[in-house]
């Protein structure tokens, strides 16, 4: 299984969740973070100016597809980073995306 993590500006929340939804991905975990990067500081003082971190666990192939789509559709528009980590999950059957 792969854990795909996206750290992006909080305003990108809706587009990101829609992309997940469009891919049939039902499960994710999300929390607000602050950060800094190429696009400057993102303090957590105002929700609209902060970042969110979104974590999605899914099978390797689905993760590859997700990362490709993020690369093509998401990263050009929003300040964000994306990375994948190998993880071992309990109950792997839970993490299969449905047909969208």
């Amino acid at each position: 299984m792969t854990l795909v993590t996206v750290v992006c500006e909080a305003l990108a929340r809706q587009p990101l969740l829609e992309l997940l939804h469009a891919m049939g991905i039902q499960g994710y975990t999300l929390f607000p973070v602050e950060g800094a990067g190429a696009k400057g500081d993102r303090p957590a003082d105002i929700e609209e100016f902060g970042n969110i971190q979104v974590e999605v666990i899914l099978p390797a192939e689905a993760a590859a597809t997700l990362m490709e789509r993020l690369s093509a559709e998401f990263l050009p528009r929003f300040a964000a980073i994306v990375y994948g980590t190998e993880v071992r999950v309990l109950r792997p059957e839970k993490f299969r995306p449905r047909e969208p």
Partner: protein
Amino acid sequence: MEFWESVRLNLGSPPILFFALGVLSVLMRADLRLPEPIYVGLSTYLLMAIGFKGGVALAEAGLARVWLPGLGAVVLGAVIPLWCYALLRWGLKFSAVDAAAIGAHYGSVSAVTFVTALQYLRGLGASYEPYASAFLAVMESPAIVVGVVLGRWSVRRGGLTWREWRQLAHEALLGRSVFLLMGSLLVGMLSGKRGLEMTEGFLVTPFQGVLALFLFEMGMVAARRLGDLRRVGPALVLFALGMPLVHALIGFWVGYGTGLSAGGAYLMAVLAASASYIAAPAAMRLALPEANPTLYLTASLAVTFPFNVTLGLPLYAQMVRWFLGHFP
């Protein structure tokens, strides 16, 4: 009142002094970060309170007296982006999409600037239409729509798709502040005087003090953007200082011409002069992601907003004095 005295009145008021303290804390790196829920709580309170009080007043005044200046506000908000776009694109050589995005910010409004102006009028002892927050509510969205359409057009030489129109309308009409303001206006209209009596101890009594605390936070928020001033260049800084004056002038005459009192027209001037720094940036990030956020955010949040609440408010009052020969 003398001009300098009316400047002093504004600069010496607790909200503005706390605003300055917030700025200072960032400049001195005292770093008093307030957590984000505090910001949400305070801004929800302020929008709810002015919306509600405006709604109660609206119900008393009746729509007959409000629709004309309201229409004026909408039209004004919608056309400001047009000349801003022209000036920025052909005069100051910004890219089309940046020009459109910045224009949207200056056509839209800042609720905090408006509320500070209310307190200032009260300090001056000037009267105004108590339903003026209705103008604030209707003036936030039009410029955003116009700015996005302008920007999309210039990027793609084509209109918006049906789906994009829907998203845009959603963004513009159901954004946090518009919804809260409109909703609280409605609640105020429906619950009337009696409702105001019930909630006075919360929505009225502590209001000015809460504003002081909120401006303290906004001072920090704005000051954190000061470092970007170098990145936007002097032309945009001048734009961010000069356009408010122009817009205040136009806003005043729109308000006065549509039948508002001197105080009401002053508030319309302030709305026109103010620039959005929450709703408009949020909409731009989603609808015009090609535009550079550093430009529009720095201009509206780090230049125009501090200018308006400190020097702008007394300047616009002076303007009214010049035009009408009288104003407290």
